[in-house]
C-alpha cells in the first residue's frame, strides 16, 4: 500500500518538474535598440553583482549592458533598506552596487560599508542639482542619485466624501476601518509628530511619548499596514484611503482615476534612492560603466516608462521630451511625479535617529500591541 502511494507521488513530482522545465524561456524583448555608450569605459570584469530594490530596474538595461560590455549581471533584490543593511553588515556578500535610501546612508558610511566614488568617471551633469549634494551625503562622495519620491495621502474620491488635506485629518472618525498605512514605524510615527508640530526626526522622549498617545488613538482605525503593495487593497476596495508612496499612487490612479494623491499641509515625507558602492566591491570598472551607461538620457528614460517616480536624471527627461512625448507629458502633467515646488519645499527627510531607534520601535510595538 505504501509502495503504491510512493509511486503515485514520484510520478506526480516528476510530471510537475517536467512542466516547470518546459515553462522557461523569457519572452523576446520588443524593438528597443541598445544605444551606444556616450563614454565607453574599458571594462575587464566579466561580472557585475547588483543588489537592488524589488522591481526597480528596466529589463533592457541588463540586456543592453551585457550586450555592449559583455559583462554578466547578477541581480539580487531586497524589499527594505534594513534587509539590505543587515545583509551587508553580516559580511560575506560580494555586491558591487546597492541602492540605499537617504536615511540609511550615514549609518552605512559610519559602519564602513560604503566606499567613496570617483565623480570624474560618472555623468554627474545629467542630474538635476536639486538631488545632488544633499545632507545625507554632502558633495556626493559616496552616492549618485537614482530615483526619488514622496510618502503622502491617497484617497478614493468616488467613495471618500470628506477629502483629507492634512495628516491630522486622518484622525477623522469617518475614516475608521478604511485606512491603509505603510508598515513603517518612522513614517507613521513621523507624521504623527508633524501633526503635533514637532520635528519628524525628534529624539526627545517627551515629544515621542505625546506622539505615542496620539497615534494609539488612530491605530485601531487602520485596517491594513502594508509596505509591499498598498495599492492592491485600495484598488480591490478593501480600504478607501491612507498613506502611500509615489509609485503606488501613480499606478493606482492609472487603474482608477478616482485615486487622488494629496500633499498634506504638514508636509509630505520626501525620500531619495541612490546608487552606492559597498566596500570590497571587486568589479569597479563595471560599476562605473553601469552607472554611466544606464544614467544616459537614452537609457534612463525607460524608468519613466516602467517606474513612475520622481526622476532626478534631467538628461532622461530631456530625451523623453523630444523622443517620448507621451510619457513625458504623462510625467509632467501628474502632480504625483512632477511634484509642485511648494510641496517639495514643505517636505521632510527621514534621518537616522541613532540611540532613539529602539525607542521608535518600542512605540510602534506599543501602539500596535494595545489590547
Amino acid at each position: 500500500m505504501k509502495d503504491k502511494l510512493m509511486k503515485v507521488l514520484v510520478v506526480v513530482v516528476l510530471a510537475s518538474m517536467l512542466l516547470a522545465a518546459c515553462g522557461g524561456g523569457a519572452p523576446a524583448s520588443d524593438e528597443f535598440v541598445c544605444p551606444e555608450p556616450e563614454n565607453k569605459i574599458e571594462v575587464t570584469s566579466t561580472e557585475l553583482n547588483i543588489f537592488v530594490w524589488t522591481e526597480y530596474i528596466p529589463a533592457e538595461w541588463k540586456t543592453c549592458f551585457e550586450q555592449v560590455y559583455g559583462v554578466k549581471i547578477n541581480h539580487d533584490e531586497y524589499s527594505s533598506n534594513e534587509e539590505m543593511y543587515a545583509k551587508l553588515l553580516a559580511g560575506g556578500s560580494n555586491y558591487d552596487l546597492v541602492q540605499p535610501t537617504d536615511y540609511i546612508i550615514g549609518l552605512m558610511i559610519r559602519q564602513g560599508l560604503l566606499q567613496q566614488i570617483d565623480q570624474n568617471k560618472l555623468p554627474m551633469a545629467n542630474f538635476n542639482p536639486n538631488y545632488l549634494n544633499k545632507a545625507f551625503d554632502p558633495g556626493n562622495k559616496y552616492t549618485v542619485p537614482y530615483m526619488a519620491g514622496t510618502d503622502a495621502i491617497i484617497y478614493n474620491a468616488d467613495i471618500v466624501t470628506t477629502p483629507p488635506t492634512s495628516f491630522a485629518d486622518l484622525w477623522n472618525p469617518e475614516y475608521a476601518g478604511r485606512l491603509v498605512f505603510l508598515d513603517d514605524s518612522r513614517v507613521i510615527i513621523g507624521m504623527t509628530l508633524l501633526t503635533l508640530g514637532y520635528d519628524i526626526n525628534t529624539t526627545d522622549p517627551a515629544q515621542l511619548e505625546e506622539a505615542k498617545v496620539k497615534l494609539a488613538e488612530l491605530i485601531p482605525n487602520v485596517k491594513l499596514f502594508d509596505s509591499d503593495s498598498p495599492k492592491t487593497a485600495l484598488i480591490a476596495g478593501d480600504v478607501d484611503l491612507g498613506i502611500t508612496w509615489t509609485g503606488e499612487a501613480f499606478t493606482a490612479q492609472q487603474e482608477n482615476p478616482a485615486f487622488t494623491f494629496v500633499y498634506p499641509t504638514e508636509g509630505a515625507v520626501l525620500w531619495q534612492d541612490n546608487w552606492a558602492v559597498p566596500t570590497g566591491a571587486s568589479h569597479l570598472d563595471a560599476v562605473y560603466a553601469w552607472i554611466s551607461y544606464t544614467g544616459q538620457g537614452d537609457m534612463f528614460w525607460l524608468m519613466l516608462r516602467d517606474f513612475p517616480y520622481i526622476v532626478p536624471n534631467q538628461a532622461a527627461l530631456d530625451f523623453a521630451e523630444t523622443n517620448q512625448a507621451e510619457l513625458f507629458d504623462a510625467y509632467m502633467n501628474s502632480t504625483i511625479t512632477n511634484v509642485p515646488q511648494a510641496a517639495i519645499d514643505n517636505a521632510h527627510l527621514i534621518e537616522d535617529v541613532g540611540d532613539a531607534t529602539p525607542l521608535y520601535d518600542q512605540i510602534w510595538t506599543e501602539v500596535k500591541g494595545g489590547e
Partner: protein
Amino acid sequence: MLKRLRENKAFQGTILAIPTLIFMVGLLIIPLILTAIISFGTRSPDGNVIYGFSLHNYARIFGISSECQNGKSICFDPLYMQILGRSLSLAFNTTVLVILMAYPLSYFIARSHPRRRNTFLFMVLVPLWTNFVIRVYAWMMLLRTQGVINGVIGWVAGLLGLHFVPLEMIYTPGAVLVGMIYEFLPFMILPIFTSLEKIETPLYEAAADLGANPFRTFLRVTLPLSMPGVVAGTILVFIPVMGTFIVSDLLGGKQVILVGNLIQRQFLDARDPTFGSAASLILMVMTLIVTYFYTRKFGFGEEIISA
C-alpha cells in the same frame, strides 16, 4: 585492531551520525550559544552589539523597569508579556481547532476502504506542494471585500433579489484563524490517521460483544488508542504556530504584533540584535516549558515516532 573497530556497533553508529552531528552543531548549537551571548550584550547607537553581561534585555521583556514615573523604585510594564500571551493564545486556539477538524476527517479516512484511503491521503498532501506563502495569497483572493466569496454570495443574493452588503472578512482576527487552520491541518491529520489506522478491527468487535455502544467504544477504545497521534500532531502544530507571523501579517493586515514580528523587527527596523536574541531565547524556553508539561501529561506520541 581496525577490524575490531569496524565491527564495533557503537563506532558504526557514530560514523552514521556524523553528518547530522556536524549539521546540528554547526547550524543549531553554535548559533544558539551565539544568540545567548548576544542577548547579554548592549546596543551601540548604530545598532552594533557591545559584548558584556547585562540583564537589561531580559528585564525589558519581563517588563521590569527602574525608570518609573510615579516615584516608585521598580515598576511593571506588561507590553512584551502581552505579546507573548497573544502568540500563546493564537497557538492554543489554532491547535484546538485543528484537532477538532482533523480528528473526524482522519477517522473517516482510516475507516474508509483501503483502496480509497490512498486517494484521500493524497488529497490531504497535495496542497503542501505549493509554497506556503502562495497559498496564503490564494486565501486573500477569496476573503477580499470584493473577492470570490463575497462575489458568489452577492451573485446568489442578486438572483434572489436580495440586497447584500459585502462581508468584512479579510484583515480580521477570524481571517487569521482560518488561514492558520488551513495551513496546519495536514500536520494533524497525518499523525492521527496513522494511530487510528493501527487500531485492529477485532478490538471494536470485542467492545461490541462486551455490550459497549458505539459512543462508549469510541470513548473507551478508539480515543485512548489514538491519543499518541493527537499528541504528535499537537507538537507538530503548536511549536511552529508560536513563531509564525506570515499568516497574521497577510490575512490580519499587520494590525497586531506577534512574538515572531517582534523578533524580526529587532534585527531589521530596530537594529537591536541584543534584544532580539533575548526575545528569541525567551520564546524557545517558553515553548519548551509548554511542550514539557504537555508531554509529561500525555506522553510524546512515542508510538507514532517509532512507527
